[in-house]
């Protein structure tokens, strides 16, 4: 059962071959077996999940209309608020936080009759590329438990790759969906900025954050995005435009496809095996009738530096709300007001979050703002203009999602800058607000997955899914599964 896709599980329920409660029980059993190894979840409420599944079965028996994800377990990154369920963002500062409301994406999942199977581990406040910055546990890569699953949505990626859930939600601020999807060998998608409401998402960098799906197949990812996308007046950056029926068109190939290949994505630092797998995937597209077009993104080498100014700047501002006053950790030491703020934050935040708050505060401080923050925003525009120009000549841009396959736990933990370089191919998409998708395109000799990154113009999600599906239909890597109990 846990080998099946969400699409298959929906069909099996429609034909009355299985019940929702059997599906949820099968995935809960996988969680019980595999969590000692994977540690992808922070919170699983078995009884509540089974209750939800039973309610779906009861609706079906009563002949009531069912939602698009009826009876499908969905794991959710612990940065999305679920009413009454502990939501930590991977941080000690929110260790006992129980949100008083649901995030918009959670409301959408419940309206679609999905089953919330658990909250997944993540880098604290989504800051990191390995999930090692979680205050709670270290999630393992299902393909090799000595390796990291990627981050920051490492728990959501490992849960799907490890057969603990057919679908999951993550968030992507600089690659936090696409990078772990690549390193765990699954599909991960970051929608256009504004496509999914951020209401109830604990903010990291508000002009970059976006919620998106993880799945083992392109069609499943399309199904999950279709369920959570759409306008929400509670997020003023949420875009009011119709959500296409992605699942209806996903199997239609794009005729006359032009693939932009930027030389900047194939330079120094790219692992040989990763580069070769991506080139092989591009050849597959040529066999399918696509044309490869040389495009240039001349400012992309500067994107990472701009990102590591803009994202910490926004984070230092967003995280000012964690002051120990209304919710979250408050120091037990006696202090005046300012001392209570500082001590609560010093005790509650982990090392990477402190680093980013410090960088963000510095680049926004008097005398440095123009040299750092404003400069980075100017570079951001240049990065976006590169994409605008490139998309005049192609329908999609392709390259590697990550410079290397998954690295061992601990390998980069004492070198923040080395960790940041894991995001070198993914951050420009966030700076420009584009939709991006990572698709499995092979394995290294050591059996670690490799991801192909596809980037499209704003709101071209429908094409992105169709283009990804073209490759998947001739090179389906999802049949290969990690060896787990």
């Amino acid at each position, binding site marked *: 059962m846990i080998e099946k896709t969400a699409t298959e599980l929906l069909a099996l329920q429609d034909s009355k071959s299985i019940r929702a409660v059997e599906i949820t029980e099968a995935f809960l059993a996988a969680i019980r077996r595999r969590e000692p190894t994977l540690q992808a979840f922070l919170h699983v409420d078995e009884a509540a999940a089974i209750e939800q599944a039973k309610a779906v079965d009861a609706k079906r028996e009563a002949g009531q209309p069912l939602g698009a994800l009826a009876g499908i377990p969905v794991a959710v990154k612990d940065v999305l608020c679920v009413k009454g369920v502990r939501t930590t963002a991977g941080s000690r500062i929110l260790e006992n936080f129980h949100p008083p409301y649901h995030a918009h994406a959670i409301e959408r999942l419940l309206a679609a009759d999905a089953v919330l199977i658990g909250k997944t581990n993540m880098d604290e406040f989504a800051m990191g590329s390995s999930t090692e910055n979680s205050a709670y546990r270290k999630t393992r890569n299902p393909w090799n438990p000595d390796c990291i699953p990627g981050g920051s949505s490492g728990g959501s990626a490992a849960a799907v790759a490890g057969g603990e859930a057919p679908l999951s939600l993550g968030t992507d601020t600089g690659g936090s969906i696409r990078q772990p999807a690549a390193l765990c060998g699954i599909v991960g998608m970051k929608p256009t900025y504004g496509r999914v409401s951020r209401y109830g998402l604990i903010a990291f960098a508000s002009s970059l954050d976006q919620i998106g799906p993880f799945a083992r197949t392109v069609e499943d990812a399309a199904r999950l995005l279709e369920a959570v996308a759409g306008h929400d007046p509670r997020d003023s950056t949420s875009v009011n435009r119709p959500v296409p029926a992605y699942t209806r068109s996903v199997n239609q190939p794009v005729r006359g496809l032009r693939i932009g290949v930027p030389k900047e994505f194939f330079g120094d630092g790219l692992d040989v095996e990763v580069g070769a797998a991506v080139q092989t995937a591009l050849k597959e597209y040529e066999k399918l009738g696509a044309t490869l077009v040389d495009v240039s993104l001349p400012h992309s080498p*500067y994107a990472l530096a701009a990102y590591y100014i803009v994202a910490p700047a926004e984070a230092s501002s967003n995280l000012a709300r964690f002051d120990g006053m209304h919710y979250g950790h408050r120091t037990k030491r006696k202090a005046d007001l300012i001392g209570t703020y500082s001590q609560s*934050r*010093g005790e509650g935040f982990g090392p990477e979050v402190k680093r980013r708050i410090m960088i963000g505060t510095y680049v926004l401080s008097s005398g440095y703002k123009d040299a750092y923050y404003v400069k980075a925003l*100017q570079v951001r525009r240049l990065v976006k203009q590169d994409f605008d120009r490139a998309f005049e000549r192609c329908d999609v841009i392709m390259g590697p999602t990550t410079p290397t396959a998954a690295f061992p736990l601990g390998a980069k933990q004492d070198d923040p800058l080395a960790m940041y370089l894991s995001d070198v191919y993914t951050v420009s998409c966030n700076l420009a607000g584009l939709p991006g998708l990572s698709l499995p395109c092979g394995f290294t000799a050591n059996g670690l997955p490799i991801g192909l990154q596809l980037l499209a113009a704003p709101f071209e999600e429908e094409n992105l899914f169709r283009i990804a599906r073209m490759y998947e239909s001739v090179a389906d890597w999802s049949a290969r599964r990690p060896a787990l109990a």
Partner: protein
Amino acid sequence: MSLDAEEVKKVARLARLELAEADLARLQPQLSAILAYVDQLQALPTAGVEPLAHPIPVSNAFRDDVPAPSLPVDEALANAPNRIGNHFGVPAVFSHD
């Protein structure tokens, strides 16, 4: 760009972040390395380029000003570190001297 120990302390004070001496010692070279990396932007000419704060054009999203139910008091206070009656208990904001 590199930061000395006093500058690190000043930034921590601005950020309302208590840091132990060991944290300060570790952060100083790490922050300096990150700032040295992002300093590469200075080499890129950007005169006349309009800063881009937001990737997608957004303007003010207005809504009608209509009353709607708000969070009940007990739910709003449920996560309070220190609840005093129907209020959040906090340290004194103004001192007496």
